[in-house]
Protein backbone atom coordinates (compact mmCIF):
# COMPACT_ATOMS: atom_id res chain seq x y z
CA UNK A 1 0.00 0.00 0.00
CA UNK A 2 2.51 2.59 1.07
CA UNK A 3 5.41 3.22 -1.19
CA UNK A 4 8.56 4.54 0.36
CA UNK A 5 10.73 1.91 -1.22
CA UNK A 6 12.12 3.97 -4.07
CA UNK A 7 15.75 4.71 -3.40
CA UNK A 8 16.89 7.42 -5.76
CA UNK A 9 20.47 7.17 -6.84
CA UNK A 10 22.88 9.62 -5.32
CA UNK A 11 26.64 9.43 -5.18
CA UNK A 12 28.52 8.76 -1.95
CA UNK A 13 28.69 6.16 0.77
CA UNK A 14 25.44 4.52 1.82
CA UNK A 15 25.01 2.70 5.11
CA UNK A 16 21.32 2.03 4.71
CA UNK A 17 20.19 2.52 1.14
CA UNK A 18 22.77 0.16 -0.26
CA UNK A 19 20.61 -2.75 -1.35
CA UNK A 20 17.68 -3.24 -3.68
CA UNK A 21 14.45 -3.01 -1.77
CA UNK A 22 12.25 -6.04 -2.41
CA UNK A 23 9.25 -7.71 -0.80
CA UNK A 24 11.55 -9.61 1.55
CA UNK A 25 14.61 -7.39 1.90
CA UNK A 26 13.48 -6.31 5.38
CA UNK A 27 13.52 -9.89 6.72
CA UNK A 28 16.04 -11.33 9.12
CA UNK A 29 17.31 -13.69 6.46
CA UNK A 30 17.94 -10.87 4.00
CA UNK A 31 19.51 -8.68 6.67
CA UNK A 32 21.84 -11.48 7.73
CA UNK A 33 22.79 -12.08 4.14
CA UNK A 34 23.89 -8.44 4.05
CA UNK A 35 26.05 -9.01 7.12
CA UNK A 36 23.44 -8.14 9.69
CA UNK A 37 23.87 -8.95 13.39
CA UNK A 38 27.62 -9.47 13.00
CA UNK A 39 28.17 -6.31 15.02
CA UNK A 40 25.97 -7.70 17.78
CA UNK A 41 27.94 -10.99 17.68
CA UNK A 42 31.16 -9.02 18.01
CA UNK A 43 29.81 -6.96 20.88
CA UNK A 44 28.37 -9.75 23.02
CA UNK A 45 31.28 -12.12 22.41
CA UNK A 46 34.30 -9.88 22.56
CA UNK A 47 33.57 -6.44 23.95
CA UNK A 48 32.97 -4.80 27.30
CA UNK A 49 30.07 -2.34 27.62
CA UNK A 50 32.45 0.58 28.13
CA UNK A 51 34.36 -0.38 24.98
CA UNK A 52 31.15 -0.13 22.97
CA UNK A 53 30.39 3.34 24.32
CA UNK A 54 33.98 4.35 23.67
CA UNK A 55 33.69 3.24 20.08
CA UNK A 56 30.43 5.11 19.57
CA UNK A 57 31.99 8.23 21.14
CA UNK A 58 35.04 7.87 18.94
CA UNK A 59 32.85 7.71 15.85
CA UNK A 60 31.73 11.26 16.56
CA UNK A 61 28.18 10.42 15.53
CA UNK A 62 25.67 13.17 16.25
CA UNK A 63 22.11 12.30 17.17
CA UNK A 64 19.77 12.14 14.21
CA UNK A 65 16.59 13.19 16.01
CA UNK A 66 17.10 16.87 15.42
CA UNK A 67 19.29 18.29 18.17
CA UNK A 68 22.53 16.72 16.84
CA UNK A 69 23.81 15.94 20.33
CA UNK A 70 26.82 13.61 20.37
CA UNK A 71 25.37 10.15 20.97
CA UNK A 72 28.50 8.82 22.66
CA UNK A 73 28.44 11.62 25.19
CA UNK A 74 24.80 10.85 26.01
CA UNK A 75 25.67 7.20 26.59
CA UNK A 76 28.73 8.11 28.61
CA UNK A 77 26.65 9.91 31.23
CA UNK A 78 24.99 6.68 32.34
CA UNK A 79 26.80 5.27 35.34
CA UNK A 80 27.31 1.54 34.88
CA UNK A 81 27.20 -0.95 37.73
CA UNK A 82 25.11 1.26 39.98
CA UNK A 83 22.70 -1.52 40.92
CA UNK A 84 19.66 -0.12 39.23
CA UNK A 85 17.97 -0.85 35.92
CA UNK A 86 18.97 1.20 32.89
CA UNK A 87 16.73 1.59 29.90
CA UNK A 88 17.33 2.37 26.27
CA UNK A 89 14.49 3.71 24.21
CA UNK A 90 14.38 4.04 20.45
CA UNK A 91 12.57 7.20 19.48
CA UNK A 92 10.45 6.12 16.52
CA UNK A 93 7.81 8.76 17.12
CA UNK A 94 8.69 10.46 13.88
CA UNK A 95 6.34 13.41 13.84
CA UNK A 96 8.36 16.44 12.87
CA UNK A 97 6.52 17.73 9.80
CA UNK A 98 8.49 17.00 6.68
CA UNK A 99 10.34 14.09 8.24
CA UNK A 100 9.77 10.54 7.02
CA UNK A 101 13.23 9.03 6.95
CA UNK A 102 12.78 6.96 10.10
CA UNK A 103 9.73 5.46 8.48
CA UNK A 104 11.97 4.27 5.65
CA UNK A 105 14.40 2.72 8.11
CA UNK A 106 11.65 1.05 10.14
CA UNK A 107 10.01 -0.36 7.05
CA UNK A 108 13.13 -1.43 5.20
CA UNK A 109 15.88 -2.08 7.74
CA UNK A 110 13.96 -2.88 10.95
CA UNK A 111 16.62 -5.40 11.98
CA UNK A 112 19.37 -2.86 11.62
CA UNK A 113 17.49 -0.50 13.96
CA UNK A 114 16.86 -3.38 16.34
CA UNK A 115 20.49 -4.49 16.27
CA UNK A 116 21.53 -0.96 17.20
CA UNK A 117 19.06 -0.97 20.06
CA UNK A 118 20.32 -4.31 21.40
CA UNK A 119 23.94 -3.16 21.17
CA UNK A 120 23.01 0.08 22.98
CA UNK A 121 21.35 -1.97 25.71
CA UNK A 122 24.50 -4.04 26.04
CA UNK A 123 26.63 -0.91 26.27
CA UNK A 124 24.37 0.67 28.85
CA UNK A 125 23.68 -2.53 30.80
CA UNK A 126 20.00 -2.44 29.98
CA UNK A 127 17.91 -5.52 30.54
CA UNK A 128 14.85 -4.02 28.88
CA UNK A 129 14.69 -1.78 25.86
CA UNK A 130 11.79 0.05 24.29
CA UNK A 131 10.79 1.15 20.85
CA UNK A 132 8.32 4.00 20.98
CA UNK A 133 6.69 4.11 17.58
CA UNK A 134 4.11 6.67 16.60
CA UNK A 135 0.56 5.39 16.63
CA UNK A 136 -0.21 6.27 13.03
CA UNK A 137 2.61 4.07 11.70
CA UNK A 138 0.94 0.87 10.68
CA UNK A 139 3.34 -0.78 8.23
CA UNK A 140 6.44 0.30 10.17
CA UNK A 141 4.82 -1.12 13.30
CA UNK A 142 4.06 -4.43 11.65
CA UNK A 143 7.52 -4.64 10.11
CA UNK A 144 9.20 -3.93 13.43
CA UNK A 145 6.88 -6.26 15.35
CA UNK A 146 7.74 -9.04 12.90
CA UNK A 147 11.45 -8.26 13.15
CA UNK A 148 11.28 -8.48 16.94
CA UNK A 149 9.60 -11.89 16.77
CA UNK A 150 12.19 -13.08 14.27
CA UNK A 151 14.95 -11.86 16.56
CA UNK A 152 13.46 -13.65 19.57
CA UNK A 153 13.13 -16.86 17.56
CA UNK A 154 16.74 -16.56 16.41
CA UNK A 155 18.08 -16.06 19.92
CA UNK A 156 19.00 -12.44 19.22
CA UNK A 157 16.64 -11.24 21.92
CA UNK A 158 15.44 -12.59 25.24
CA UNK A 159 17.48 -14.68 27.67
CA UNK A 160 21.17 -15.32 26.98
CA UNK A 161 21.48 -13.68 23.61
CA UNK A 162 23.57 -15.75 21.20
CA UNK A 163 24.33 -18.11 24.05
CA UNK A 164 26.12 -15.46 26.09
CA UNK A 165 25.07 -14.22 29.50
CA UNK A 166 23.57 -11.08 28.05
CA UNK A 167 19.77 -10.90 28.14
CA UNK A 168 17.54 -8.23 26.75
CA UNK A 169 13.82 -7.88 26.15
CA UNK A 170 12.35 -5.37 23.76
CA UNK A 171 8.94 -3.79 24.14
CA UNK A 172 7.42 -2.31 21.01
CA UNK A 173 5.25 0.50 22.29
CA UNK A 174 2.80 2.25 20.04
CA UNK A 175 1.85 5.87 20.66
CA UNK A 176 -1.60 7.21 20.05
CA UNK A 177 -1.28 10.54 18.36
CA UNK A 178 0.85 13.29 19.87
CA UNK A 179 3.70 15.25 18.30
CA UNK A 180 5.16 16.29 21.63
CA UNK A 181 5.77 12.64 22.55
CA UNK A 182 8.72 12.81 20.18
CA UNK A 183 10.38 14.91 22.88
CA UNK A 184 12.33 12.48 25.00
CA UNK A 185 10.85 13.24 28.41
CA UNK A 186 7.31 13.35 27.03
CA UNK A 187 8.01 10.03 25.34
CA UNK A 188 9.00 8.49 28.65
CA UNK A 189 5.86 9.87 30.30
CA UNK A 190 3.90 8.23 27.50
CA UNK A 191 5.84 5.00 27.98
CA UNK A 192 4.78 5.11 31.60
CA UNK A 193 1.23 5.10 30.30
CA UNK A 194 0.55 8.74 31.00
CA UNK A 195 -0.25 11.75 28.90
CA UNK A 196 2.81 13.09 27.14
CA UNK A 197 3.77 16.07 29.20
CA UNK A 198 7.48 16.91 28.93
CA UNK A 199 9.46 17.31 32.10
CA UNK A 200 11.86 19.94 33.34
CA UNK A 201 15.58 19.27 33.50
CA UNK A 202 17.38 18.74 35.79
CA UNK A 203 17.40 15.86 36.40
CA UNK A 204 18.55 14.64 33.03
CA UNK A 205 16.89 11.55 31.64
CA UNK A 206 20.23 9.76 31.74
CA UNK A 207 20.06 10.24 35.51
CA UNK A 208 16.31 9.90 36.09
CA UNK A 209 14.33 8.81 33.10
CA UNK A 210 11.79 6.06 32.63
CA UNK A 211 10.28 5.25 36.02
CA UNK A 212 13.03 7.40 37.57
CA UNK A 213 15.78 5.14 36.20
CA UNK A 214 18.69 6.20 33.98
CA UNK A 215 17.40 6.15 30.42
CA UNK A 216 18.95 6.86 27.05
CA UNK A 217 16.60 7.92 24.29
CA UNK A 218 18.04 7.71 20.79
CA UNK A 219 16.55 8.37 17.40
CA UNK A 220 15.94 5.44 15.04
CA UNK A 221 18.64 6.54 12.62
CA UNK A 222 21.16 7.09 15.40
CA UNK A 223 20.66 3.53 16.62
CA UNK A 224 20.67 2.14 13.08
CA UNK A 225 24.15 3.65 12.71
CA UNK A 226 25.46 1.73 15.71
CA UNK A 227 25.92 -1.63 13.91
CA UNK A 228 27.79 0.29 11.20
CA UNK A 229 30.10 1.96 13.71
CA UNK A 230 30.77 -1.27 15.58
CA UNK A 231 30.98 -3.32 12.40
CA UNK A 232 33.58 -1.27 10.62
CA UNK A 233 35.07 0.56 13.57
CA UNK A 234 34.91 4.21 14.49
CA UNK A 235 37.94 5.11 12.41
CA UNK A 236 36.41 3.76 9.21
CA UNK A 237 33.10 5.40 10.06
CA UNK A 238 34.78 8.76 10.42
CA UNK A 239 36.12 8.52 6.89
CA UNK A 240 32.57 9.09 5.71
CA UNK A 241 31.16 12.59 5.87
CA UNK A 242 33.09 15.51 7.30
CA UNK A 243 35.12 15.84 10.47
CA UNK A 244 32.49 17.58 12.58
CA UNK A 245 29.60 15.60 11.07
CA UNK A 246 30.80 12.07 10.42
CA UNK A 247 28.68 9.57 8.55
CA UNK A 248 25.58 10.00 6.49
CA UNK A 249 22.25 11.70 6.94
CA UNK A 250 18.96 10.26 5.83
CA UNK A 251 17.16 13.20 4.27
CA UNK A 252 13.48 13.10 3.47
CA UNK A 253 12.56 15.80 1.02
CA UNK A 254 9.09 16.91 0.10
CA UNK A 255 7.06 19.92 -0.89
CA UNK A 256 7.41 21.48 -4.30
CA UNK A 257 10.36 19.28 -5.21
CA UNK A 258 10.30 17.35 -8.45
CA UNK A 259 11.57 14.10 -6.98
CA UNK A 260 10.45 13.86 -3.36
CA UNK A 261 11.52 10.91 -1.24
CA UNK A 262 14.18 9.65 1.13
CA UNK A 263 17.83 10.06 0.21
CA UNK A 264 20.92 8.99 2.08
CA UNK A 265 23.42 11.79 1.84
CA UNK A 266 27.00 11.80 2.95
CA UNK A 267 27.62 14.78 5.21
CA UNK A 268 29.39 17.50 3.30
CA UNK A 269 27.39 16.96 0.12
CA UNK A 270 26.50 20.07 -1.88
CA UNK A 271 23.08 21.34 -0.92
CA UNK A 272 22.43 22.88 -4.33
CA UNK A 273 23.53 19.73 -6.16
CA UNK A 274 21.18 17.78 -3.95
CA UNK A 275 18.21 20.02 -4.65
CA UNK A 276 18.72 20.88 -8.29
CA UNK A 277 20.30 17.70 -9.60
CA UNK A 278 19.50 14.74 -7.39
CA UNK A 279 15.99 15.90 -6.56
CA UNK A 280 15.36 17.40 -9.97
CA UNK A 281 14.68 20.95 -8.85
CA UNK A 282 11.18 22.28 -8.38
CA UNK A 283 7.91 20.96 -9.73
CA UNK A 284 7.02 22.37 -13.10
CA UNK A 285 10.46 23.91 -13.46
CA UNK A 286 9.65 26.64 -10.97
CA UNK A 287 12.35 28.53 -9.14
CA UNK A 288 13.16 27.62 -5.56
CA UNK A 289 11.88 30.19 -3.10
CA UNK A 290 13.08 28.74 0.17
CA UNK A 291 13.96 25.56 1.97
CA UNK A 292 12.77 24.34 5.35
CA UNK A 293 15.94 22.38 6.13
CA UNK A 294 15.11 19.89 8.88
CA UNK A 295 11.46 19.81 9.84
CA UNK A 296 9.20 22.81 10.39
CA UNK A 297 10.99 23.52 13.66
CA UNK A 298 14.11 24.65 11.81
CA UNK A 299 14.47 28.13 10.36
CA UNK A 300 13.86 28.52 6.66
CA UNK A 301 16.66 29.39 4.31
CA UNK A 302 16.14 31.24 1.05
CA UNK A 303 17.40 29.89 -2.26
CA UNK A 304 20.32 32.30 -1.99
CA UNK A 305 21.23 31.20 1.50
CA UNK A 306 21.90 27.59 0.51
CA UNK A 307 24.26 28.63 -2.27
CA UNK A 308 27.63 27.07 -1.66
CA UNK A 309 26.44 25.48 1.56
CA UNK A 310 27.13 21.82 2.23
CA UNK A 311 24.85 19.43 4.02
CA UNK A 312 26.38 19.04 7.44
CA UNK A 313 25.54 20.35 10.86
CA UNK A 314 28.13 23.09 11.23
CA UNK A 315 27.61 24.72 7.86
CA UNK A 316 23.84 24.53 8.26
CA UNK A 317 24.17 26.40 11.54
CA UNK A 318 26.53 28.88 9.94
CA UNK A 319 23.96 29.43 7.20
CA UNK A 320 21.46 30.38 9.88
CA UNK A 321 19.53 27.19 10.45
CA UNK A 322 19.99 23.52 11.33
CA UNK A 323 19.75 20.18 9.57
CA UNK A 324 17.39 19.12 12.34
CA UNK A 325 15.67 15.85 11.66
CA UNK A 326 16.55 15.79 7.97
CA UNK A 327 12.98 16.64 7.06
CA UNK A 328 13.60 18.98 4.18
CA UNK A 329 10.79 20.86 2.46
CA UNK A 330 11.24 22.84 -0.71
CA UNK A 331 8.99 25.79 -1.43
CA UNK A 332 8.70 27.20 -4.93
CA UNK A 333 8.44 30.80 -6.03
CA UNK A 334 4.88 32.04 -6.03
CA UNK A 335 3.99 30.44 -2.71
CA UNK A 336 2.21 32.59 -0.14
CA UNK A 337 4.37 32.55 2.98
CA UNK A 338 1.61 34.00 5.14
CA UNK A 339 -0.60 31.02 4.45
CA UNK A 340 2.36 28.69 4.85
CA UNK A 341 2.97 30.12 8.31
CA UNK A 342 -0.75 29.68 8.99
CA UNK A 343 -0.42 25.96 8.25
CA UNK A 344 2.68 25.71 10.42
CA UNK A 345 1.14 27.57 13.32
CA UNK A 346 -2.08 25.57 13.18
CA UNK A 347 0.13 22.55 13.71
CA UNK A 348 1.93 23.97 16.74
CA UNK A 349 -1.33 25.13 18.25
CA UNK A 350 -2.81 21.67 17.76
CA UNK A 351 0.18 19.93 19.30
CA UNK A 352 0.97 22.19 22.26
CA UNK A 353 0.58 19.93 25.27
CA UNK A 354 -0.94 22.62 27.47
CA UNK A 355 1.48 22.29 30.31
CA UNK A 356 3.60 25.42 30.47
CA UNK A 357 2.26 28.91 30.10
CA UNK A 358 4.15 30.51 27.19
CA UNK A 359 3.44 27.68 24.77
CA UNK A 360 -0.08 26.85 25.98
CA UNK A 361 -1.19 30.45 25.56
CA UNK A 362 1.26 31.59 22.91
CA UNK A 363 0.52 28.91 20.32
CA UNK A 364 -3.18 29.68 20.24
CA UNK A 365 -2.46 33.39 20.26
CA UNK A 366 -0.16 33.18 17.24
CA UNK A 367 -2.68 30.98 15.49
CA UNK A 368 -5.43 33.52 16.08
CA UNK A 369 -3.29 36.42 14.90
CA UNK A 370 -2.26 34.64 11.69
CA UNK A 371 -5.81 33.49 11.01
CA UNK A 372 -6.96 37.06 11.40
CA UNK A 373 -4.34 38.27 8.94
CA UNK A 374 -5.37 35.57 6.47
CA UNK A 375 -9.02 36.63 6.86
CA UNK A 376 -7.94 40.06 5.75
CA UNK A 377 -8.33 41.59 9.19
CA UNK A 378 -4.66 42.05 10.00
CA UNK A 379 -3.39 45.09 11.86
CA UNK A 380 -0.09 46.82 11.17
CA UNK A 381 1.23 45.87 14.60
CA UNK A 382 0.44 42.17 14.10
CA UNK A 383 3.93 41.49 12.76
CA UNK A 384 5.46 42.94 15.92
CA UNK A 385 2.95 40.96 17.92
CA UNK A 386 4.01 37.71 16.27
CA UNK A 387 7.66 38.55 16.91
CA UNK A 388 6.86 39.35 20.50
CA UNK A 389 5.04 36.08 21.11
CA UNK A 390 7.81 34.14 19.37
CA UNK A 391 10.53 35.81 21.39
CA UNK A 392 8.61 35.34 24.61
CA UNK A 393 8.62 31.60 23.92
CA UNK A 394 12.34 31.51 23.26
CA UNK A 395 13.97 29.51 26.02
CA UNK A 396 11.09 29.98 28.41
CA UNK A 397 9.28 26.68 27.94
CA UNK A 398 9.75 23.19 29.31
CA UNK A 399 10.37 21.56 25.95
CA UNK A 400 11.30 23.16 22.67
CA UNK A 401 7.89 23.11 20.99
CA UNK A 402 7.20 26.73 21.81
CA UNK A 403 10.69 27.85 20.83
CA UNK A 404 10.44 26.00 17.55
CA UNK A 405 7.16 27.62 16.63
CA UNK A 406 8.79 30.95 17.31
CA UNK A 407 11.84 30.12 15.18
CA UNK A 408 9.62 29.03 12.32
CA UNK A 409 7.55 32.21 12.51
CA UNK A 410 10.40 34.69 12.96
CA UNK A 411 12.48 33.12 10.20
CA UNK A 412 9.59 33.31 7.74
CA UNK A 413 8.82 36.91 8.73
CA UNK A 414 12.51 37.86 8.63
CA UNK A 415 12.69 36.63 5.06
CA UNK A 416 9.29 37.63 3.75
CA UNK A 417 8.19 40.55 5.87
CA UNK A 418 6.91 42.35 2.77
CA UNK A 419 4.40 39.55 2.16
CA UNK A 420 2.98 40.01 5.62
CA UNK A 421 2.88 43.77 5.26
CA UNK A 422 1.17 43.45 1.91
CA UNK A 423 -1.39 41.00 3.25
CA UNK A 424 -2.16 43.22 6.23
CA UNK A 425 -2.33 46.40 4.19
CA UNK A 426 -4.43 45.02 1.35
CA UNK A 427 -6.36 42.34 3.16
CA UNK A 428 -5.24 39.77 0.65
CA UNK A 429 -2.25 37.67 -0.27
CA UNK A 430 0.52 38.88 -2.52
CA UNK A 431 0.31 35.47 -4.20
CA UNK A 432 -3.46 34.87 -4.04
CA UNK A 433 -2.92 32.57 -1.08
CA UNK A 434 -1.24 30.06 -3.32
CA UNK A 435 0.32 27.04 -1.62
CA UNK A 436 0.62 24.61 -4.51
CA UNK A 437 2.45 24.32 -7.78
CA UNK A 438 0.45 21.36 -8.98
CA UNK A 439 -2.83 20.68 -7.22
CA UNK A 440 -4.34 17.34 -8.22
CA UNK A 441 -7.72 18.29 -6.77
CA UNK A 442 -8.01 21.87 -8.00
CA UNK A 443 -9.87 20.99 -11.19
CA UNK A 444 -12.18 18.49 -9.53
CA UNK A 445 -13.06 20.90 -6.73
CA UNK A 446 -13.71 23.73 -9.19
CA UNK A 447 -16.02 21.42 -11.12
CA UNK A 448 -17.85 20.37 -7.96
CA UNK A 449 -18.17 24.00 -6.87
CA UNK A 450 -19.41 25.01 -10.28
CA UNK A 451 -22.02 22.27 -10.15
CA UNK A 452 -23.16 23.44 -6.74
CA UNK A 453 -23.27 27.09 -7.90
CA UNK A 454 -25.26 26.13 -10.96
CA UNK A 455 -27.66 24.07 -8.89
CA UNK A 456 -28.16 26.99 -6.52
CA UNK A 457 -28.66 29.42 -9.40
CA UNK A 458 -31.17 27.08 -11.01
CA UNK A 459 -32.99 26.57 -7.73
CA UNK A 460 -33.10 30.35 -7.28
CA UNK A 461 -34.50 30.84 -10.77
CA UNK A 462 -37.22 28.27 -10.14
CA UNK A 463 -38.17 29.91 -6.86
Amino acid at each position, binding site marked *: MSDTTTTPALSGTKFFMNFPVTETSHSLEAYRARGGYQALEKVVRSMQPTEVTKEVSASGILGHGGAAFPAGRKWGVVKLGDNQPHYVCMNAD*EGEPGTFKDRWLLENVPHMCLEGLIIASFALEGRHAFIYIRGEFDLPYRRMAAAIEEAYAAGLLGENILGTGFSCDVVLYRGA*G*SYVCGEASAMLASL*EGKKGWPRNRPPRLTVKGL*YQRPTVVNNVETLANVPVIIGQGAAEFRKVGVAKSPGTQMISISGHIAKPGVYEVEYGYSWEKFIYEDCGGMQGGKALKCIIPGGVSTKILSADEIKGVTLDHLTAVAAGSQLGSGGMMAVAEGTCMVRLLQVIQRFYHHESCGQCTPCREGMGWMDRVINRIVRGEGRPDDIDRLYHISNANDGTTICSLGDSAGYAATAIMDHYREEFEYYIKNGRSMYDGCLTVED*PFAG*AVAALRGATANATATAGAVA
Partner: protein
Amino acid sequence: MSELVQRLIPEFERWKERYPAGFEGSLTIPCFRRIQEERGYVADDDVDALQAYLGIARTQLDEVLGFYTQFTRKPLGKTHLQVCHNVSCSLRGAANLVTYLSCKLGIQPGQTTPDGKFTLSTVECLASCGTAPMMMVNDAYHENLTPATVDALLAEHSA
Protein backbone atom coordinates in the same frame (compact mmCIF):
# COMPACT_ATOMS: atom_id res chain seq x y z
CA MET B 1 -18.32 -4.67 33.40
CA SER B 2 -16.92 -4.59 29.92
CA GLU B 3 -17.00 -8.06 28.40
CA LEU B 4 -14.55 -6.88 25.79
CA VAL B 5 -11.92 -6.03 28.37
CA GLN B 6 -12.51 -9.35 30.15
CA ARG B 7 -11.94 -11.12 26.88
CA LEU B 8 -8.74 -9.19 26.16
CA ILE B 9 -7.17 -9.59 29.59
CA PRO B 10 -5.35 -12.85 28.73
CA GLU B 11 -3.75 -11.01 25.81
CA PHE B 12 -2.77 -8.09 28.07
CA GLU B 13 -1.24 -10.60 30.46
CA ARG B 14 0.96 -11.96 27.69
CA TRP B 15 2.22 -8.46 26.89
CA LYS B 16 3.42 -8.08 30.44
CA GLU B 17 6.00 -10.82 29.94
CA ARG B 18 8.32 -8.49 28.07
CA TYR B 19 7.90 -5.54 30.39
CA PRO B 20 9.99 -5.07 33.49
CA ALA B 21 8.16 -5.68 36.76
CA GLY B 22 6.19 -2.71 38.02
CA PHE B 23 5.34 -1.37 34.57
CA GLU B 24 1.60 -2.14 34.78
CA GLY B 25 0.76 1.53 34.37
CA SER B 26 2.52 1.51 31.01
CA LEU B 27 -0.19 -0.71 29.59
CA THR B 28 -2.80 2.05 29.45
CA ILE B 29 -2.06 3.15 25.91
CA PRO B 30 -1.57 -0.34 24.41
CA CYS B 31 -4.74 -1.58 26.12
CA PHE B 32 -6.81 1.36 24.93
CA ARG B 33 -5.47 0.86 21.41
CA ARG B 34 -6.46 -2.79 21.51
CA ILE B 35 -9.90 -2.00 22.92
CA GLN B 36 -10.50 0.61 20.24
CA GLU B 37 -9.30 -1.79 17.56
CA GLU B 38 -12.08 -4.18 18.62
CA ARG B 39 -14.91 -1.81 19.45
CA GLY B 40 -14.10 1.14 17.25
CA TYR B 41 -14.05 3.43 20.25
CA VAL B 42 -13.44 3.31 23.98
CA ALA B 43 -16.66 2.88 25.93
CA ASP B 44 -17.15 4.06 29.51
CA ASP B 45 -17.43 0.44 30.61
CA ASP B 46 -14.06 -0.29 29.07
CA VAL B 47 -12.43 2.47 31.08
CA ASP B 48 -14.00 1.15 34.29
CA ALA B 49 -12.85 -2.37 33.52
CA LEU B 50 -9.35 -1.31 32.56
CA GLN B 51 -9.03 0.75 35.71
CA ALA B 52 -10.00 -2.28 37.75
CA TYR B 53 -7.56 -4.46 35.83
CA LEU B 54 -4.56 -2.13 35.93
CA GLY B 55 -5.29 -0.79 39.38
CA ILE B 56 -4.25 2.76 38.56
CA ALA B 57 -5.89 6.12 39.17
CA ARG B 58 -8.86 6.90 37.01
CA THR B 59 -7.45 10.36 36.37
CA GLN B 60 -4.49 8.83 34.53
CA LEU B 61 -6.87 7.03 32.19
CA ASP B 62 -9.00 10.14 31.67
CA GLU B 63 -5.90 12.17 30.90
CA VAL B 64 -4.58 9.61 28.44
CA LEU B 65 -7.89 9.41 26.58
CA GLY B 66 -8.14 13.18 26.39
CA PHE B 67 -4.54 13.77 25.35
CA TYR B 68 -3.92 11.41 22.45
CA THR B 69 -5.72 12.29 19.26
CA GLN B 70 -6.15 8.70 18.10
CA PHE B 71 -8.48 7.77 20.93
CA THR B 72 -12.16 8.34 20.59
CA ARG B 73 -14.88 7.92 23.18
CA LYS B 74 -17.64 7.89 20.61
CA PRO B 75 -18.22 5.55 17.67
CA LEU B 76 -16.91 6.93 14.39
CA GLY B 77 -18.00 6.07 10.89
CA LYS B 78 -17.17 2.62 9.56
CA THR B 79 -14.38 4.17 7.53
CA HIS B 80 -12.28 6.90 9.07
CA LEU B 81 -10.65 9.21 6.56
CA GLN B 82 -7.82 11.20 8.10
CA VAL B 83 -6.38 13.75 5.73
CA CYS B 84 -3.00 15.23 6.52
CA HIS B 85 -3.08 18.99 6.12
CA ASN B 86 0.38 19.81 7.38
CA VAL B 87 3.01 21.69 5.39
CA SER B 88 4.11 19.22 2.73
CA CYS B 89 0.60 18.01 2.07
CA SER B 90 -0.65 21.59 1.92
CA LEU B 91 2.04 22.32 -0.66
CA ARG B 92 0.61 19.46 -2.69
CA GLY B 93 -3.10 20.20 -2.47
CA ALA B 94 -4.35 18.94 0.90
CA ALA B 95 -6.81 21.83 1.20
CA ASN B 96 -8.59 20.89 -1.99
CA LEU B 97 -8.44 17.21 -1.08
CA VAL B 98 -10.36 18.05 2.10
CA THR B 99 -12.82 20.18 0.12
CA TYR B 100 -13.22 17.40 -2.42
CA LEU B 101 -13.99 14.84 0.28
CA SER B 102 -16.32 17.29 2.03
CA CYS B 103 -18.27 17.84 -1.17
CA LYS B 104 -18.39 14.17 -2.06
CA LEU B 105 -19.46 13.06 1.40
CA GLY B 106 -21.55 16.10 2.28
CA ILE B 107 -19.83 16.52 5.63
CA GLN B 108 -17.25 18.82 7.17
CA PRO B 109 -14.06 17.61 8.87
CA GLY B 110 -14.96 16.27 12.28
CA GLN B 111 -18.31 14.95 11.08
CA THR B 112 -19.69 11.53 10.22
CA THR B 113 -22.01 10.83 7.30
CA PRO B 114 -25.62 10.22 8.37
CA ASP B 115 -25.38 6.61 7.15
CA GLY B 116 -22.45 6.08 9.50
CA LYS B 117 -20.15 4.99 6.70
CA PHE B 118 -17.53 7.75 6.79
CA THR B 119 -15.95 10.04 9.31
CA LEU B 120 -13.76 12.80 7.90
CA SER B 121 -10.92 14.27 9.94
CA THR B 122 -7.96 16.49 9.26
CA VAL B 123 -4.75 15.50 11.01
CA GLU B 124 -1.21 16.77 11.37
CA CYS B 125 1.87 15.31 9.71
CA LEU B 126 1.73 11.53 9.20
CA ALA B 127 5.31 11.28 7.89
CA SER B 128 4.16 10.68 4.37
CA CYS B 129 5.32 14.03 3.04
CA GLY B 130 7.12 12.71 -0.01
CA THR B 131 3.93 11.12 -1.29
CA ALA B 132 1.54 14.00 -0.62
CA PRO B 133 -1.35 14.53 -0.73
CA MET B 134 -2.28 11.59 1.38
CA MET B 135 -4.75 10.30 3.90
CA MET B 136 -5.21 7.42 6.24
CA VAL B 137 -8.17 5.20 5.46
CA ASN B 138 -8.67 3.50 8.79
CA ASP B 139 -5.13 2.20 9.52
CA ALA B 140 -3.73 2.26 6.00
CA TYR B 141 -1.84 5.08 4.31
CA HIS B 142 -3.03 6.08 0.84
CA GLU B 143 -0.57 8.33 -0.89
CA ASN B 144 -0.14 10.42 -4.03
CA LEU B 145 -3.91 10.81 -4.09
CA THR B 146 -5.82 12.01 -7.13
CA PRO B 147 -9.56 12.46 -7.67
CA ALA B 148 -9.59 9.08 -9.41
CA THR B 149 -7.90 7.20 -6.56
CA VAL B 150 -10.07 8.98 -3.99
CA ASP B 151 -13.23 8.11 -5.92
CA ALA B 152 -12.10 4.49 -6.04
CA LEU B 153 -11.45 4.45 -2.30
CA LEU B 154 -14.82 6.00 -1.54
CA ALA B 155 -16.54 3.47 -3.79
CA GLU B 156 -14.65 0.59 -2.19
CA HIS B 157 -15.60 1.70 1.32
CA SER B 158 -19.19 2.61 0.51
CA ALA B 159 -19.95 -0.98 -0.28
